[in-house]
């Protein structure tokens, strides 16, 4: 098996809450192969966005990365000098964010913002950058691209803004795209278009995508592999069909059963009892233990380790230890 494009091992990102530093990303291991789409799934507040920000080392203060290794094509990202890190950002790993309305500079034209992305990584003149920006706009499906280059973000619809964001992200031809909730907040029809755009990226340009989302429908559409996050930890990962079709971890199971599409009319929606604990207020031992239907003594005493389940699947669960 070829080495993955992105290999994250033991990533720990902490934030000060009260007087302690709480690991909102706790010993996360992730791998994304070239041209692969890996979905990082979880509820709000589970740490998935922070994982993405940690990869590009854009964790907002007062958070910081306390431990872990992150290798991109074999090169360690932590400890890179600032210049090299900036070359990686945008040049090799690009990010798109959830709210295109606030993620674009309101006083600059979108054309200028794309041109900036280009010129940060390639030595080209202004007109060459503009020509390339035009190409990018076309390739992300923005109609009338020449006119749109001169538009300000507030003059574009939500879907166009997100396409512009993607154009900005692709400007320097990155190998990996971190997409943080790219379709949340958009109309359903626009969502489908954006997903289609992302899919074509993978197929045509071979861009790998780490797709962060809480929408299992989106995961189903796009992902090759799925990692499920809960309370800062990855509790299950594996091939999409396996994780979504036959989940091993009780949390994944609960999530899937709670999907409204799975409910029968007239039936009460299945739910996971309790609520997601605030960071730092996790249960002792396994963090899911206070909500888990399969809980037993070992769960409350020890945090389960990440175990391989064969076939590229991993999970953290005491109930699965010893299972084939």
């Amino acid at each position, binding site marked *: 098996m070829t080495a993955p494009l992105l290999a994250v091992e033991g990533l720990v990102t902490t934030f000060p809450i009260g007087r302690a530093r709480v690991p909102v990303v706790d010993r996360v291991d992730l791998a994304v192969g070239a041209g692969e789409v890996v979905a990082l799934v979880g509820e709000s507040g589970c740490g998935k966005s922070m994982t993405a920000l940690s990869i590009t080392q854009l964790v907002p203060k007062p958070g910081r990365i306390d431990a872990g290794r992150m290798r991109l094509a074999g090169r360690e990202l932590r400890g890179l000098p600032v210049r090299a890190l900036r070359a990686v*950002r945008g040049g090799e790993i690009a990010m798109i964010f959830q709210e295109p309305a606030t993620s674009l*500079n309101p006083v600059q034209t979108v054309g200028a913002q794309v041109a900036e992305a280009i010129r940060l990584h390639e030595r080209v003149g202004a007109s060459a950058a503009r020509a390339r920006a035009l190409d990018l706009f076309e390739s992300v499906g923005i109609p009338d691209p020449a006119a749109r280059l001169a538009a300000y973000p507030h003059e574009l619809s939500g879907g166009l803004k997100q396409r512009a964001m993607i154009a900005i992200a692709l400007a*320097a031809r990155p190998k990996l795209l971190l997409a943080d909730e790219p379709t949340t907040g958009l109309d359903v029809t626009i969502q489908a278009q954006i997903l289609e755009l992302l899919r074509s990226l993978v197929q045509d340009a071979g861009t790998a995508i780490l797709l962060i989302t809480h929408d299992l429908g989106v995961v189903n559409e796009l992902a090759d592999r799925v990692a499920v996050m809960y309370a800062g930890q990855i509790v299950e990962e594996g091939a999409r069909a396996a994780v979504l079709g036959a989940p091993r971890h009780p949390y994944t199971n609960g999530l899937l059963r709670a999907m409204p599409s799975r409910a029968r009319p007239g039936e009460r929606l299945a739910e996971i009892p309790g609520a997601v604990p605030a960071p730092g207020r996790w249960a002792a031992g396994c963090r899911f233990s206070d909500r888990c239907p399969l809980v037993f003594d070992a769960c409350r005493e020890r945090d389960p380790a990440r175990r391989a389940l064969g076939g590229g699947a991993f999970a953290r669960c005491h109930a699965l230890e010893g299972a084939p």
Partner: protein
Amino acid sequence: MLAYLVRRLAWGAATVVGVLVFLFWLFFLYADPQDVARRAVGEKAPPAAIAQWLANHGYDKPAVWNPAAPLDTRLADHLRRMLGFDFGTSDADDTPIADRLRRGLGPTLGVTIPLLAFGLPLALAMAMLVAFFRDTAIDRAGMIASVLAMSISMLIYILAGQFLLAKLWRWFPISGFDADPAVVLRFLALPVAIGVASGLGGEVRFYRTVFLEEAGRDYVRTARAKGAGDARVMARHVLPNALIAVVTNVSLSIPFLFTGSLLLESFFGIPGLGAITVEAIQANDFSTLRVMVYLGALLFVAAQIAADVAYTWVDPRVRLG
């Protein structure tokens, strides 16, 4: 755009009229004309002289409503004259107010324009520096210095500045003014320097907050994710967005220039509008004081309208229509 401007001008006009009516009420209805007359003519003056003074200054007409001739009232007079910039004569020494204003305008501008021209870029630069080094020792030192600087009264700045820079170290003259272009800078330097220094504390704090707020926004995160460095982010992303707040702040502080120069001119003997105002206060010269307040309000209204226009240049989301 034109329709908006017209609306704003209408608002401005209404506000100015409101100010004039308020001033009229304050000075003419609330204050007793007899007192004013007595102060001007002299406490022991005969009643005839007082009556004459009152007639000369228009105090003998009915105040607001005259059944005989609706427009021949003190209020109408007041409005007509102020709006026509016919300021009459000072209560204190009967000299025409307009003349004195014309002579005082130059020196005042000589203080306030450099004050703005030096003070604003300096405050912005220091705020950017402090915001750039956010949460480091530089930031903390800067913030402590700002709070300390803000807490010192302008009077102390002036007295200390005069004492240290003029008396002790003799870098500048203590006070005085000579419009001769060869030496005028020497007389303006100290008041401008002290004016800038006294305002820096509050300004740096304010702009720092603005910069930090902008720096925390999502589009800055996007810029960083593109690979932009801190300097570029500050200059190309944060600053242009912060200009909106800068325009607002500057437009609101134009009146401060007017009053801040009051103290500066008075202490440093600069014969500008501020000095005229201080003399008016000390001489109980209501006429001049009235005119000063009116002009200040005019200036403020003009500054607000100018700010609205400036917003369209600075923020593409603002469309005046």
